[in-house]
């Protein structure tokens, strides 16, 4: 089969021109978060190889990873996990159950559950700074 010619406006413009409803955005976000998480699992595996270099190497590295900047990044990464996980469940329900009939309602559940757990994780991760903040108000 011959290769189809490029669309006159180019691939990117043609793709951007499509009307996007809720489901299209869910699909796009699922791919972006998926690629992000795959890139991250490489970083995660590589970062933990310091475990083979002994106690000092590992504990030094963890000092960096427990600084506020990395803690915030760690928290933000959880949003990718939550979205990809819950939208993944939505995809399975559409494919293997009656999800196609209520996939837009499911999307509301995906976003709602995601926001709740994201904030919950934030409260857990930053319990000390939050407690300090309220202590100073008293």
């Amino acid at each position, binding site marked *: *089969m011959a*290769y*189809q010619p490029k669309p006159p406006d180019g691939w990117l413009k043609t793709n951007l021109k499509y009307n996007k409803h809720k489901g299209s955005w869910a699909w796009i976000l699922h*791919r972006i978060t*998926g*690629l992000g*998480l*795959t890139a991250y*699992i*490489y970083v995660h*595996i*590589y970062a*933990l*190889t310091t*475990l*083979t270099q*002994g*106690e000092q190497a*590992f*504990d030094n590295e*963890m000092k960096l*990873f*427990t600084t506020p900047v990395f*803690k915030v990044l*760690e928290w933000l990464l*959880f949003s990718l*996990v*939550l979205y990809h*996980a*819950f939208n*993944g*469940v939505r*995809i*399975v329900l559409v*494919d*293997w159950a009656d999800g196609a009939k209520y996939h837009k309602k499911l999307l509301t559940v995906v976003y709602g559950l995601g926001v709740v*757990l994201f904030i919950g*994780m934030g409260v*857990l*991760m*930053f*319990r*000390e700074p939050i407690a300090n903040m309220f202590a100073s108000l008293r």
Partner: protein
Amino acid sequence: MYKHSGSRGSGAPGWVLQRITGILLVVVVIGHYFVMHSDPASGHTYAAVLARMHHPFWKMFDLTFITVGLWHGLNGTWGIFRDYKMKPAVSLTIYGIIILSGIAFWVLGVNTILSF
């Protein structure tokens, strides 16, 4: 040989496995986050890792986690590329990078786990 690369077979086994590994990962990754990354005071010293790695359960858990996670991520990545019509050489190069880097990082991760 690779004229229709990416279109050999229906891709159905990968599609089913992507869903099965996905369901597993929903539980495992969110669980991992609450166990390992929610308490700022826990689990991230060498001594704590050493203690955990003495249990065969956690070794098996991590080995499964790395294998299933990498496979799901890379099968998904290849699934995205498969949606585009690529020249055979490009397709083969991307597939090669996915397979080789996947194996390399799997070995790296397994090596870390088995070093305990």
